[in-house]
């Protein structure tokens, strides 16, 4: 299997990349780590006439932390999330999820921006970014704009990106309160496989142990990551195990679960309830210990 012919450009700056996108529009595909795009090209599921390789745009590969906020360039490799201490400190949810993204070889090459722009429904990073309430920075020759993680994802392999736009970076806010915790759980057939169902959560408690912030995202089950509406019911409550289990069940009920070769819709819904509760319990335990 080999890709169909294409023209190749390797810009050095974001501006050059945006010019190429403006010129070639939907004829062009942006190439970052290539861990999703190149398999699709090899199988000829996509046949872009033009490939714009972002790997030489140094400005997109930077990571920086200021005042607890983490700024991740789109080209930061996924393995940096597991290796860089700044991620573990500012966004421990990302550090915990990172080893579950694909395999050693794919994380070495795969990028944060690539995973987010590809928007696979079973991918870990889109779900984590929604749980963390991250802000995505989009750029085109027309100008920059910002978009919340929640608004960025539009369903199966679909995002808010226009054909002439690129995802330049992501800004992850710090913990929502002093007593905050995160939780992550997923079910996959083997380590590194796409998750059949996964969930991540961020909870924050006040000094009295009452929940003041609750975000729960279920992924892998439907056409995209789902921010659970029912998690709002936890606010003002103590995170007792029974309440968290109830929120997990309510979250699973909100999902339009899909069926495929790997699992039935019913299986995904049932597992989602338990996995969501587990993510919430881990978040609550961390927040209580904080």
């Amino acid at each position, binding site marked *: *299997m*080999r*890709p*169909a*012919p*294409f*023209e*190749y450009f*390797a810009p050095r700056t974001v501006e050059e990349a945006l010019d190429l996108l403006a010129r070639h529009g939907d004829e062009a595909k942006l190439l970052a780590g*290539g*861990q999703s795009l*190149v*398999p699709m090209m*090899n*199988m000829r599921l996509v046949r872009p*006439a033009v*490939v714009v*390789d972002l*790997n030489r745009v140094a400005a997109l590969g930077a990571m920086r932390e200021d005042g607890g906020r983490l700024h991740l360039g789109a080209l930061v490799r996924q*393995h940096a999330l597991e290796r860089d201490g700044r991620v573990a400190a500012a966004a421990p949810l990302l550090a915990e999820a990172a*080893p579950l993204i*694909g*395999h*050693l*070889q*794919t994380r*070495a*090459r795969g990028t944060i921006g690539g995973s987010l722009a590809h928007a696979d429904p079973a991918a870990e990073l889109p779900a984590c970014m929604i749980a963390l309430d991250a802000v995505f920075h989009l750029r085109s020759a027309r100008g920059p704009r910002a978009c919340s993680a929640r608004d960025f994802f539009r369903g199966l392999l679909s995002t808010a990106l226009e054909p002439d736009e690129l995802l330049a970076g992501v800004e992850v806010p710090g913990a929502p309160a002093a007593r905050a915790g995160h939780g992550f759980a997923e079910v996959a057939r*083997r*380590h*590194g496989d796409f998750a059949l169902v996964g969930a991540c959560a961020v909870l924050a408690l006040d000094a009295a142990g009452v929940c003041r912030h609750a975000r729960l995202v279920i992924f892998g089950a439907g056409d995209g990551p789902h921010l659970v509406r029912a998690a709002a019911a936890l606010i003002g409550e103590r995170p007792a195990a029974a309440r968290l289990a109830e929120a997990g069940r309510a979250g699973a009920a909100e999902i339009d679960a899909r069926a495929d070769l790997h699992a039935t819709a019913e299986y995904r819904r049932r597992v989602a309830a338990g996995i969501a509760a587990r993510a919430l319990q881990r978040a609550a335990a961390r927040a209580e210990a904080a």
Partner: protein
Amino acid sequence: MTPRPGSTVHDVAVTVNGAERRARVIPRLLLADLLREEWGLTGTHLGCEHGACGACTVLVDGEPTRSCLVFAVQVDGCRVDTVEGLAGPGPGLHPLQEAFRSRHALQCGFCTPGILMTLVAYLRLHPSPSETEIREALSGNLCRCTGYQHIVQAALDAAAAGREAVPAP
């Protein structure tokens, strides 16, 4: 006459196993094909050709990389290490290869180069892995002879031999 799309050639210079090599490539040429077809480095094997089996793993600037998912034009100026360079110029084997031999960690040998290159990079960063950690590190490499047990044993042996050779400070 307008050239056929995709026929524009690009010159690349790559340091392969320590020696500089040059080639003129079309954009759609995969790194694996450059290594195998142009340069005769057929130790790198192509299994699935879509990034699932790990047989084509090489090191690009020291990082384990699936060479079926990288275009040759992308590695211009990079360092690429393949299984051919593992043992070095002498007659002996690399300690990892030695461990694979003594543990019978290969049957048909098709997956072996990709597994060796993955482990070389992994053990460099994790000199004292547990068996579980080795299995996780190898989750992206498929062996269809299903001989994982010996592969994991060989990796543990090589890690122990590496720690002996370079005592912890």
